[in-house]
């Protein structure tokens, strides 16, 4: 090997390394940019009335997104009612029962469902609930979000349950405990933190979803007094304000986005805190 070729190889190595560093920088920068802009534009419009007041009509300054914030919380709750039981129990089935042959298909199906665009779930909930009852509602919005949750929670639950060592199941079996009680009291209990993590992650994901709510929850300028009425939601409100031509509404959209991202990060960081907690316990 000639020394000149070696030099070329070394140069090429350094060049490629530099390129990869650049890639990492470019990938990271949008996050920095967006946080910067969110804070810069949004902080100004965040005040007490933002959290407590209803949207004001066009032209009038002020007002807030109180109903949208509450609406998001309600929709999250409804989604969990649908998503968590089905996802969790389905994950239990995949991990503890079932033949491996069929389970492979269920897993595959769940992975594909996880990739379905969220707007399709909105259309499904629309056809299922909005059309027969002839009204947009919190129910339909919660259902659409719940549809998204089911395969998510199912996969994360299964992945966590599979990690529970077989030794614990064996020890419990040797004590003469019925299989279903072993699953409920030993396996699920051991995997509890991981399951909660999975649920929180799923909630963080659906908290920011807008598309499925466009024609299910639909949005509401006022308080919803019943779950069968259209309901406001934070992402919906942000969208409506963002595409409007009014500056005041744009400012509020930024503020709403700041609140939304705070909520989403809380749910995801809650995850991180729980897993850090787990590591601490194990070290004891």
């Amino acid at each position: 090997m000639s020394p000149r070729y070696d030099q070329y190889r070394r140069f090429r190595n350094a060049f490629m390394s530099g390129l990869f560093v650049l890639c990492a920088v470019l990938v990271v920068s949008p996050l920095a940019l967006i946080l910067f802009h969110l804070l810069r534009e949004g902080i100004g419009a965040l005040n007490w009335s933002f959290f407590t007041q209803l949207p004001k009509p066009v032209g009038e300054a002020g007002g807030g997104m109180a109903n949208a914030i509450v609406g998001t919380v309600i929709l999250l709750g409804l989604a969990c009612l649908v998503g968590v039981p089905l996802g969790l129990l389905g994950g239990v089935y995949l991990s503890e029962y079932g033949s491996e042959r069929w389970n492979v298909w269920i897993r595959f199906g769940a992975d594909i469902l996880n990739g379905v665009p969220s707007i399709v779930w909105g259309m499904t909930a629309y056809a299922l609930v909005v059309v027969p009852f002839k009204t947009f509602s919190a129910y339909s919005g919660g259902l659409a979000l719940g549809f998204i949750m089911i395969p998510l929670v199912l996969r994360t639950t299964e992945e966590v349950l599979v990690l529970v060592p077989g030794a614990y199941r064996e020890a419990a079996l040797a004590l003469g405990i019925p299989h279903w009680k072993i699953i409920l009291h030993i396996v699920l209990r051991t995997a509890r933190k991981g399951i909660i993590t999975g649920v929180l992650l799923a909630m963080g994901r659906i908290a920011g979803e807008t598309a499925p709510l466009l024609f299910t929850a639909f949005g509401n300028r006022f308080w919803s007094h019943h779950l069968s009425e259209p309901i406001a939601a934070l992402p919906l409100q942000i969208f409506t304000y963002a595409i409007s031509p009014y500056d005041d509404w744009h400012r509020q959209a930024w503020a709403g986005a700041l609140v939304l991202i705070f909520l989403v990060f809380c749910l995801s960081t809650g995850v991180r805190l729980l897993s850090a907690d787990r590591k601490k316990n194990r070290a004891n």
Partner: protein
Amino acid sequence: MAMSLDEKPLTEPAIAPPAARVPVVPPTVTTPVPAGPAKSALERPEVVFDIRQLNVFYGANRAISNVTLQIYARSVTAVIGPSGCGKSTFLRTLNRMHELTPGAHHTGAILLRGQDLYGAGVDATIVRRRVGMVFQKSNPFPTMSIAENVLVGLRLNGVRDKALLRQRLEESLRMAALWDEVKDHLGRPGISLSGGQQQRLCIARALAVRPEIVLMDEPCSSLDPLATAKIEELIQQIKRDYTVVIVTHNMQQAARVSDRTAFFYMGELVEYDETRTIFMSPSNPQTEAYVSGRFG
């Protein structure tokens, strides 16, 4: 006196004296297996497990061939042999854990006090309450405290009586020689104990459901000599009331701890006799070769 197993044995507070048991006449042995020294009918010990012509398979592989032996009550029976000779498989057929492996099946009969363990109407879960097991590596449940670990078998089988639970907790921990060490912090997590303590906790957990027999699968193999000595000591204590079958690859342990020893080799029962006989004057040359360390 036949009784349903569900409630009574697990909640029975009074401990029935051994004399109340009706000694079961051991069934006639058909294959020539070296039996213990001849005893008169009055002195013949009660048979707990009557194993006849047992063949155990994993799919098409035969792991245990034609084993016939009896295990006697309130004694310690050691099962020894080189790795892969089928000791653990044999043990796991005694509490119906073997069948959990896919493809596992067997021929032959195992009678627990005269009743077929694998009979047509038999619930394996109940079998496992009567035949307890301690595993090679201690496995206390990580999310439970020491007390919760000991009592989990009782609680999940429906026992609610707080007084009984407290009593059983102390009794079991005492029998496992752990009470004095943990009595002041029963709320600590089970996994916060040392390795040897964890294994004793698992023994207490197994004893708490008051099984008739305790199977032990190399319980000391991952423990240091001090912890091992403690467990051997407690085996000697509990054999007053329990029947113990212990699988061990440590011959000296078998000699120390057991009354009778069964030597397995390549899935066959080579010799089964009083421990003294097996180690001092075995009848089978293979046995002699193994216990004198010429192979293993």
